């Protein structure tokens, strides 16, 4: 279809008539500002074609011109398959007129012809619904709807049959079909009954498989229990056989007989041991009695020998004691001689020591006298220096100007001079130049007229021959300075008065004198310190106290120097001392010897006494024994005891021989072994009985558990469950395979269905996106996703601009498909499209539209005609299309 002329009058915003004529085959740009009526123009075109002239109600009223009376009237000339038509639609009853190559149609006939030409049906009750627009729902794109996924999909669905027809014309009869889809859905549903996510069995199928596993586990557990049962039974049989063998051998009676024999032999050996022990006791008793008698006799001999020996010792000791007494007396005499010699040496030493002390006293007196003289001289010098020092201190007290006070005074004077200089600087200089001599007076005092006056305060000058003149120098500053100068002078005067000096020069002199006196005082102090240091004391008082001590010691020394001369014939004191030492040593030697002799004599006396005592004791013991049993009786008893002992020894030997023959250790061991053998055999028998009983008990418990029946029952159920699970598995796999194969086949069909569109879309798309393709809904052909490098991006998630561009390209491809199949493509009208395209994409889209315009008529409604500059297109400005009312 191609639109050739559009005339609109009294339609909404386009109340004034407009006429767009001579619309060409290719690209037409209809430009108009916002609100100028571009979208209304598209609405008018759709109303002309798809709304009945007799439309009523709110929809019809919405067509009325804004702010004006008049019936909406539309006229569109168009071509279809090279046939020219002209449609006039006046929105009132029977207002449709269609001029066709075969004549003029009016009213319903014209409407019916229109529906037939454009192949649309009025499906929706309301007007301006794309359900009513047939193929044009896809190609006449309203403002801001070209990028809406839902609107795009819905519009494409309206024209589905047309596209399908075109596709089938290309790929032949190819469809999934309702039955195919029904079977596919059924297969999917059945597959879901068997398999869940990740192909995992679910529902009854999972239960059937689970039952097999559960029963398998139960059967294994029961089989294990049966094995345990069989093992128990085998064990029982083995134990029973063992017990039977034991009972057949019957070793217990023989073992018990052996044990009895062993016990008898053991009893005999024990009797022999007792007899042997009795004989041993008897022998020991006889032997002890014999030994006692022998010891008694031997002891008696020993005592007698001891008495003899003691007597001999007493004699020897007496002789030795006499010799010792003689030696003792000799040593006592030596001691007396030594004591006398020592007394003489001591007296001589005492005289020598007295003489030495007198000589030492003389020497000390001389030393003390020299020390006293020297100290007195130093103390006199110090007294003189102290006197000089006191005079200097008195002078210093009278000198009031020290260095600090002098500094303060200088500062006060400097301030006074500064203030005076400042006052002088601001003084008014008055110079007189009298023409004739005349007196000049101030306060009656004449002033030298040749001298200049420096006035610092108000002054009245009497000028002779003239009168008077009052000079008022300076201002407030002069008064201040004058006051400051007066204050400074007063301060200086006060300071001089305090220091008791006339002026600054006098003060300078006093200060210089004070410095000199201070230096002399320091020299005196230094001299006194140096002199005092020669005495070895730090203060004069200490030196004087020492002098007093020396004089006191000197006065105390004895005046016995004469006796020293009288003792000059005495021997040397060292000789006297050696003599005293030698005599003392000799005395100690002889005294030691005397002491030793005395001790030795006492010891000898004690030994003699002890020997006598011992001898008496031995004689006493011997006498006591003899009194009890005399020597003859003792000898007789000894003979008898020896005979008894020999007899007991013979009895013991016989008993020991019998004991050895009885072998008590062997009998003990044999009896123990026999007892153990009986015990072991009895224990073995009990163990076998107990084990058999235990196993029988265990088996009985296991038998009551009915394992065999349970095992057979579970095994049967397992077999059945396996068969049922296998059948379900076969069915499940069959449904899965069927669903998969149907899905694969359906996918192939769908891919082939969209192929004619995608093939036409690709040249456009490749200009916009390198290496990308569009996934189309096989049912509606609406774009579902953009696939780039294997990754699919959902169409709805793309940017508005990209969605709009893709939607336009799909329309171009569909138009191409229709063109190829039908020989004619529908007219494409875009209202304010590509508003979201960036500059680069916009240029590409322009080029693509330009290319598509070779195949189909394209009308672009835009408010920015400059964007489309450069295209091979006719530009129509809406404002230039207005016509007169007539």
């Amino acid at each position: 279809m191609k639109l050739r002329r559009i005339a609109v009058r009294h339609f909404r915003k386009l109340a004034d008539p407009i006429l767009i004529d001579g619309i060409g085959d290719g690209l037409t740009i209809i430009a108009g500002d916002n609100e100028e009526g571009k979208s209304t123009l598209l609405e008018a075109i759709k109303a002309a074609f798809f709304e009945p002239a007799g439309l009523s109600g709110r929809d019809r009223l919405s067509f009325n011109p804004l702010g004006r009376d008049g019936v909406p009237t539309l006229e569109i000339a168009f071509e279809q398959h090279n046939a020219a038509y002209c449609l006039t639609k006046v929105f009132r009853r029977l207002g449709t007129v269609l001029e066709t190559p075969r004549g003029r149609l009016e009213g319903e006939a014209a409407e019916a012809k229109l529906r037939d030409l454009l192949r649309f049906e009025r499906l929706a009750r309301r007007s301006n619904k794309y359900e009513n627009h047939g193929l044009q729902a896809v190609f006449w794109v309203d403002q801001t709807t070209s990028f809406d996924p839902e609107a795009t999909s819905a519009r494409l669905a309206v024209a589905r049959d047309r596209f399908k027809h075109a596709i089938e014309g290309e790929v032949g009869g190819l469809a999934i079909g309702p039955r195919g889809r029904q079977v596919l859905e059924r297969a999917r549903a059945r597959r879901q009954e068997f398999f869940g996510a990740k192909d995992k069995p679910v529902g009854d199928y999972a239960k059937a498989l689970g039952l097999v596993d559960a029963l398998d586990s139960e059967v294994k557990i029961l089989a294990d229990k049966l094995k345990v049962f069989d093992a128990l039974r085998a064990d029982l049989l083995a134990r029973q056989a063992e017990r039977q063998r034991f009972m057949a051998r019957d070793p217990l009676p023989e073992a018990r007989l052996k044990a009895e024999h062993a016990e008898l032999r053991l009893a005999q050996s024990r009797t022999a041991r007792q007899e042997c022990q009795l004989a041993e006791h008897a022998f020991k008793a006889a032997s002890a009695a014999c030994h006692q008698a022998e010891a008694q006799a031997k002891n008696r001999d020993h005592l007698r020998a001891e008495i003899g020996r003691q007597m001999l010792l007493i004699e020897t000791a007496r002789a030795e004691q006499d010799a010792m007494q003689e030696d003792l007396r000799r040593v006592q005499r030596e001691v007396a001689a030594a004591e006398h010699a020592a007394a003489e040496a001591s007296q001589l030493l005492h005289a020598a020591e007295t003489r030495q002390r007198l000589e030492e006293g003389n020497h000390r007196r001389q030393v003390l006298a020299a020390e006293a003289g020297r100290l007195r001289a130093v103390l006199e010098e110090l007294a003189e220096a102290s006197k000089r020092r006191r005079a200097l201190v008195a002078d210093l007290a009278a000198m009031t100007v020290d260095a600090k006070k002098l500094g303060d005074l200088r500062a006060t004077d400097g301030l006074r001079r500064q203030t005076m200089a400042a006052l002088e600087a601001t003084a008014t200089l008055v110079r007189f130049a009298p023409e004739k001599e005349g007196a000049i007076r101030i306060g009656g005092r004449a002033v030298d007229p040749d001298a200049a006056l420096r006035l610092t305060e108000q002054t009245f000058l009497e000028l002779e021959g003239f009168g008077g003149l009052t000079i008022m120098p300076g201002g407030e500053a002069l008064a201040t300075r004058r006051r400051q100068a007066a204050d400074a002078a007063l301060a200086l005067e006060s300071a001089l008065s305090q220091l008791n000096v006339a002026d600054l020069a006098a003060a300078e002199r006093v200060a210089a004198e004070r410095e000199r006196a201070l230096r002399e005082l320091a020299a005196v102090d230094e001299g006194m310190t140096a002199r005092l240091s020669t005495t070895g004391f730090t203060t004069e008082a200490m030196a004087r106290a020492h002098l007093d001590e020396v004089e006191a010691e000197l006065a105390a020394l004895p005046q016995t120097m004469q006796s020293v001369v009288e003792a000059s014939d005495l021997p040397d004191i060292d000789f006297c001392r050696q003599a005293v030492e030698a005599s003392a040593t000799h005395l100690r030697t002889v005294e030691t010897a005397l002491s030793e002799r005395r001790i030795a004599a006492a010891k000898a006396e004690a030994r003699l006494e002890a020997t006598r005592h011992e001898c008496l004791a031995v004689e006493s013991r011997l006498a006591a024994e003899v009194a009890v049993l005399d020597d003859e009786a003792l000898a007789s008893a000894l003979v008898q005891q020896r005979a008894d002992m020999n007899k007991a020894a013979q009895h013991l030997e016989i008993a020991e021989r019998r004991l050895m023959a009885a072998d008590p250790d062997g009998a003990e061991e044999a009896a123990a072994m026999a007892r153990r053998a009986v015990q072991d055999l009895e224990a073995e028998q009990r163990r076998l009985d107990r084990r058999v009983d235990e196993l029988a008990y265990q088996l009985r418990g296991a038998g009551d558990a009915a394992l065999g029946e349970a095992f057979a029952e579970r095994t049967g159920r397992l077999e059945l469950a396996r068969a049922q699970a296998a059948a379900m598995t076969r069915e499940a796999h069959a449904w899965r395979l069927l669903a998969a194969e149907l899905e694969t086949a359906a996918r192939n069909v769908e891919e082939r269905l969209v192929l004619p569109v995608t093939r036409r879309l690709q040249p456009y798309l490749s200009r916009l996106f390198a290496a990308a393709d569009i996934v189309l809904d096989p049912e509606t052909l609406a774009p579902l996703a953009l696939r780039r490098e294997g990754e699919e991006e959902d169409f709805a998630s793309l940017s508005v601009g990209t969605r709009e561009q893709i939607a336009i390209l799909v329309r171009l491809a569909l138009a191409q498909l229709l063109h190829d199949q039908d020989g004619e493509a529908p007219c494409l009208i875009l209202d304010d499209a590509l508003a979201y395209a960036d500059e680069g994409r916009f240029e590409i889209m322009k080029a693509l539209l330009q290319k598509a315009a070779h195949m189909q008529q394209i009308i672009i409604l835009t408010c920015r005609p400059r964007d489309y500059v450069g295209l091979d297109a006719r530009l129509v400005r809406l404002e230039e299309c207005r016509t007169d009312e007539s």
Partner: protein
Amino acid sequence: MLKLLHTADWQIGAPFSHIAGDAGAVLRDERFAVVRRIAALATAREVDAVLVAGDVFDSNLVEMRTIYRLLDALEGYRGPWVMLPGNHDAALPESVWHRLARLGAPANLHVAMEPLPLALPGTQAVILPAPLTTRHTLDDLSAWMDSASTPEGIFRLGLAHGSIEGYLPDQGEATNPIAADRAERARLDYLALGDWHGTRSIDARTHYAGTPEPDRPKDNDSGNVLLTQIERPGALPLVERVAVGRHRWYRRTLNLTAAEPSAFNDLLGALIGDLGPVETLLLWLRLEGSVDLDGRAALDVALDRWQGRLRHLQLDDATRLAPSESELARLDEGSLLGRTAARLRDLAAGPQGDTATLALRLLWQEQAKGEA
């Protein structure tokens, strides 16, 4: 004259849990029901004793409840029951017989636990039993019967459980062997045998009674007891086979290649009709041949029907699916279903052939629903 009822292989306590649904429970109960029928028969025929030649119980380790139920079933006959431990209930330590003894077995129940002569109460007969004391042995436990001495003029009756040597050549080295001429060598008037579940006579004096209630799909003439009469010691016994079994177990094969799908139900009906009443029939049916897609659907419907009627129908489906030309035409080659069917047919020739075949069947079934 001595009148005996010879039976064996009751397998009391066999669970039949491998049979799905109610059938398993019915078969379990039927083991007791047949004992009651045997007791009633013994009473009716006034036999001198009932000899049970082994495998009274399915296992030595059955529930106490099972033992009690058996004792209840035995009450229908007041004469002597003589039971022999078989390989399933061997006289091992703590066997089911020990537990039975502890429960206090009725006075008319005699369990031959040892190979010792057992005088049959109220008769001039001695039973020479050969109880199994292990499950399996390679020794002929009946050998002792040869040397067992009994008074003159007394019936010598052998009672054993095992396989007669030489009668099952493909069995290899059979366990629990019994000499084929044992009756003759031991001078037995009658040798009552158990272990083979079918009824079988070895010679005039040697007989297997078989299990009284069949328990497997084997054509071995089971479901009987033997009523034996011996006029006098040394006389040949007169043996009567009496059917007491209720259920019948069969194994059959049906080839469907040449049959029309519409005839499938009738074919099954004819096969099953030959086997007697359906409510007590257990059938192991192997299906062979090839069927087309419609035939498969018809077969499924027929099988469903018979599955509901029989006590138990166990299928071994080895049929091959071969869609017909008309069926393939119905699945438009260009359509989704047609292409999927073609792909499944290809896969059916490959390693996942069974799955692909079943998937094709399901596809056909689903598209048929759509057609309907």
